[in-house]
């Protein structure tokens, strides 16, 4: 009767929704698959060890990605080493230490807003602050710090969300046993939330690796035909002597400068190299762009795979 009609209608809606969802998912996957297919078809012929080992060139078949991927890697290293600890620390502080109130609300609102600010704005800020004010120049460290600012809000939000999901009674149990706040954070909250935080961190890093606009703003260049100096190599000592302004290095200078020389060099990154190639006259470089695209996508998929793996392992260990 009436009830049966209602049940039938609701079942129909249920199927309808499932179908809509499946269609949209299929459409998205199809676009993604087509994109990946085109990239692979165009680029796979160029993708070999020589492509990863060669410097850029005016001849498409000789042009390689070496300075670009090394640059991307080093910039991400600086970003990771600065952005992640700062982001996690800020997240823990805001979630576990601050009193809730209007001030905390304002900070929270601003951080969430920052996560949505277009990346070019970070680039302009970094140009004024890092490149000119701190005299870092268009260097690896300036780029790394710029992207660190970019990922900071994402890491903070991820950290706070994960900490929020830990049941309050875990904290209370620890306090009841006489643990200090730091001990609670160190021995309980951080280990429990490692999965969620690392997911957030890796999503943030995957975003940073594809960023172009802020790096162009701080003056990343299109053509670099050398690698940053390996720490404590002859090249690094040459840079150190320039920084020191003399042939003779003091003990501290000799210990520190050659180790961080790579931070001060010019660089390019994979997306900028791709842009340089695609804006050339003629179609010779299209295969190179596709091949570089494959490298970038594989790197991103790799990062995401690590995130999934970590999350999976952490989930298995922790049950509330």
């Amino acid at each position, binding site marked *: 009767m009436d009830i049966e009609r209602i049940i039938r209608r609701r079942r129909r809606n249920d199927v309808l929704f499932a179908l809509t969802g499946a269609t949209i998912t299929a459409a998205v996957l199809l676009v993604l698959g087509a994109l990946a297919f085109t990239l692979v078809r165009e680029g796979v012929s160029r993708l070999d060890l020589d492509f990863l080992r060669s410097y850029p060139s005016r001849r498409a078949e000789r042009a390689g990605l070496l300075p670009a991927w090394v640059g991307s890697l080093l910039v991400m290293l600086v970003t990771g080493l600065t952005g992640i600890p700062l982001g996690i620390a800020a997240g823990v502080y805001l979630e576990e230490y601050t009193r809730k109130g209007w001030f905390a609300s304002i900070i929270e609102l601003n951080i969430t807003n920052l996560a949505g600010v277009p990346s070019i704005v970070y680039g302009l800020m970094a140009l004024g602050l890092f490149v000119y004010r701190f005299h870092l120049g268009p*260097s690896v460290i300036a780029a790394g710090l710029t992207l660190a600012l970019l990922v900071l809000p994402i890491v903070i939000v991820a950290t706070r969300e994960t900490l929020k999901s830990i049941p309050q009674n875990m904290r209370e149990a620890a306090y009841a046993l006489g643990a200090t706040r730091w001990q609670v954070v160190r021995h309980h909250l951080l280990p429990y939330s490692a999965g969620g935080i690392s997911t957030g961190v890796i999503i943030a890093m995957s975003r940073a690796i594809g960023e172009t606009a802020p790096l162009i703003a701080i003056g990343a260049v299109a053509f670099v*035909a050398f690698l940053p100096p390996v720490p404590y190599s002859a090249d690094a000592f040459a840079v150190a002597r320039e920084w020191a302004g003399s042939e003779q290095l003091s003990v501290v200078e000799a210990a520190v*400068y050659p180790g961080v020389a790579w931070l001060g060099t010019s660089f390019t990154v994979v997306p900028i190299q791709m842009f340089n190639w695609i804006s*050339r006259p003629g179609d010779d470089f299209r295969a190179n762009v596709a091949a570089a695209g494959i490298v970038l996508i594989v790197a991103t998929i790799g990062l995401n795979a690590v995130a999934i793996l970590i999350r999976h392992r952490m989930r298995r260990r922790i049950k509330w």
Partner: protein
Amino acid sequence: MALMNKCAAVIGGLGIAASVAMGQTSTIRIDGSSTVYPVTEAVVEEFSAASRGKVKLTIGVSGTGGGFKKFARGEIDISNASRPISTGEMEEAAKNGVEYLELPVCFDALTVVVNTQNDWAKTMTVAELKKIWEPGAQGTITKWNQIRPEWPNEKIDLYGPGTDSGTFDYFTEAVCGKAKASRGDYAASEDDNVLVQGVEGSKYALGYFGFSYYSAHAKRLTAVAIDNGKGGILPSNEAVIAGTYNPLSRPLFIYVNKKALQERPEVKQFVEFYLENVKELAAEVKYTPLPDSAYEAVKSRFAKLQAGTVFGGHSETGLTIDDIVKRETKTGK
């Protein structure tokens, strides 16, 4: 604790890096025009190979205007330029104590292109180009039959480079009589491939950019012959060398910071290498090399470290290679 130690080490490292990363004098920094970029890139590639990577070079592509801004502040050593330095840029450089050498390296033929289906605009006069592109044309000259009555009654789709481009500066000076004097209602892009695609995709399109972008896409675009009173001339190496492709053939330059040249042997080596090899390499990347006599004149100017520009802060359009050579030798005394 281990975590804290790591953090401390990172922060300490940053502080040190921040205090020392200022000087990057071992790198030769080049920036500027996208038109000159292929030539300089070829030279840099060969130079890096010849010097076995001992000298480090970077090339940016900020456009001629963007390159001169950095050059005048002393941030880069060499500026790629598709037009001579402007009065404002000269003042800025003087204010910052930047002296420079102006070295012409090759010629380019600025090319006006239309769609391959365009069967009417085979030849255009400079006056007709001016009628289309001058600032007053904005909003009023919109159809082909306003240029010549027998041409189609269809809207002209205009494509051209953006305002930071030396190509834009040169074209407006050559055609409209004043640098940067242009209508604004056209599709502008600093990326010449966008312009190529635009003109390729629209039957009633008209655009302009450097010859190398035309020659790389010659099958997909049609070049317009330019009539400067002596009949239509299509852009080509021969026409540029003969001085008949007027007024759209233009010299391309590198500007070198004089202080860098004097104080840093690697900069001097690089520029020497540039002048020695640019003839061959420019031809390879589809530009017109200067005649040998012109390269000799440029080299002698370089040897004498003769600073300044031979242009009065603006492009002189319609210069033939002969004019440039005379100019070199005259000021070379």
